[in-house]
């Protein structure tokens, strides 16, 4: 099997998987939006970072109301996994990433249509279990002996952000664990196994039943930009740019702000 044939076969497999995902939400798919008249209808398939799950689900419903005849289906996953799927030919219309790095993966492969635009920013907070048993009020408290801290691993966006914030504050701490994603770090806080963790404000806000978010000034030094772009091979030619524009409009920005994202 030649390298090209292998790649084609792999792309076909990924495309099939993507179709299955797209088919799950939409019921009977209407034909993709007309390419000539620019009218927005049909299914818009959005690949979005997991941290956007709650806010994008709402924005998707609002979009469908604004464009009758359109359906938005989402594939929520880690940004790096989504970028890989897109590069392997998954039939997506829009990609919304939680980190510039994963967006670069897609643009460098030539899969983006135009330049990505930043539509939201996320900042870190110190997540502590309800009642804040260790009395954490700032980054310096995390180095106290006996205070157990969970961080995200350096390889994932929340870990990179945490590293920048700690460096900016000149705080050197030894965590007890380096979690594989932000939800893992948050789970350790929820269960009270650690006294603190650095997570996104949106994640802390989505878990207010078990977790309190403590703001700290150094988080301004590690702001995470969320870029969005329409994809070059988008099956829905009219729907893709329309969704990108909608995410940047005032109503969608209000939904994002409510979830804890920072305004632009």
């Amino acid at each position, binding site marked *: 099997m030649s390298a090209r044939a292998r790649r084609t076969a792999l792309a076909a497999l990924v495309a099939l998987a993507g179709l299955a995902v797209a088919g799950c939400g939409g019921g009977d798919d209407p034909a993709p939006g007309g390419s000539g008249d620019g009218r927005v209808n049909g299914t818009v398939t959005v690949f979005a970072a997991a941290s956007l799950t709650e806010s994008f689900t709402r924005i998707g419903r609002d979009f469908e109301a604004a464009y009758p005849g359109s359906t938005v289906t989402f594939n929520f996953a880690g940004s*790096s996994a989504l970028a890989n799927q897109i590069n392997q030919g998954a039939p997506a219309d829009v990609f919304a990433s939680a980190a510039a790095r994963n967006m670069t993966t897609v643009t460098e492969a030539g899969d983006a249509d135009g330049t990505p635009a930043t539509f939201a920013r996320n900042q870190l907070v110190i997540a502590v279990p309800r009642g804040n048993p260790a009395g954490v009020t700032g980054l310096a408290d995390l180095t106290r002996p006996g205070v157990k801290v969970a961080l995200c*691993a350096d*390889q*994932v966006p929340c870990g990179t952000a945490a590293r920048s914030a700690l460096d900016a504050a000149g705080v050197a701490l030894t965590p007890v664990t380096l*979690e*594989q994603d932000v939800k893992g770090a948050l*789970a350790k806080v929820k*269960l009270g*196994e650690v006294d603190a963790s650095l997570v996104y404000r949106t994640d802390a806000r989505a878990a207010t039943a078990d977790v309190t978010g403590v703001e700290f000034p150094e988080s301004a030094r590690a702001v995470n930009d969320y870029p969005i772009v329409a994809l070059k091979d988008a099956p829905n030619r009219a729907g893709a740019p329309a969704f990108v524009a909608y995410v940047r409009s005032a109503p969608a920005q209000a939904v994002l702000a409510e979830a804890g994202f920072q305004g632009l």
Partner: protein
Amino acid sequence: MSRVLDAAAPRRRGRVPAALLIPAGMGLLFLVLPLAGLVVRAPWTTLPQRLTEPGALTALRLSVQTATLATVLCLLLGVPLAWLLARVEFPGRRLVRALVTVPLVLPPVVGGVALLLVFGRRGLIGGWLDATFGVTLPFTTAGVVLAESFVAMPFLVIAVEGALRAADHRYEEAAATLGAGRWTTFTHVTLPLVAPGLAAGAVLCWARALGEFGATITFAGNYPGRTQTMPLAVYLALETDLESAIVLSLVLLTVSVGILAALRDRWITGP
């Protein structure tokens, strides 16, 4: 008589029926193809330097150590449990047998959360351990062993119980009539009798512990040199560098297949 049987043997074997051969070949391909995929995509030119990265070797050593300790723990606790299930009639035995298999159907991440709820520092037993002895298990190497044992023990118990049920009871009965107590019978008759099944169960248990991911990262976390086993290192490498992840996977596969093949030859007789 024996000559007649010998002569009949080849004819009885005959040709391998296609109805068995074809699905068997497909099954083998299905299992081996993903492995071939890893080999094809492996970055062979940079392999040596990636292999000698200290992080990879540390994770590998920790994986082999914890999987071996977990197997020892499973043998100490699992063999008596298998014996109890196979040899002693007691009310609720079916329920106990079903409970033993719970870790098999439980998603490992859920198993990890369940372990935290019991052995975590706010857990039922963990809180007491912490307050009384100052011992905390999450985020320690001991925690990794515990998480791996939880997931792997059912494999050992099921294999050993199966071997015990298949073993001939009469040897144990003979030992008893000759005056041996139940403990002596167990150590001198039962264990040697089921040794091959025991070895197979231990190997299966070790292999499952070596590949454990979900319960480990949930209960013991991920910290290089302390709780970061090979599967955890592979998962994190996937975030940034697919080729590193492939190399780490191949190392794990080579080491585990090598050890399993070596043990199989030594312990388990037969072709």
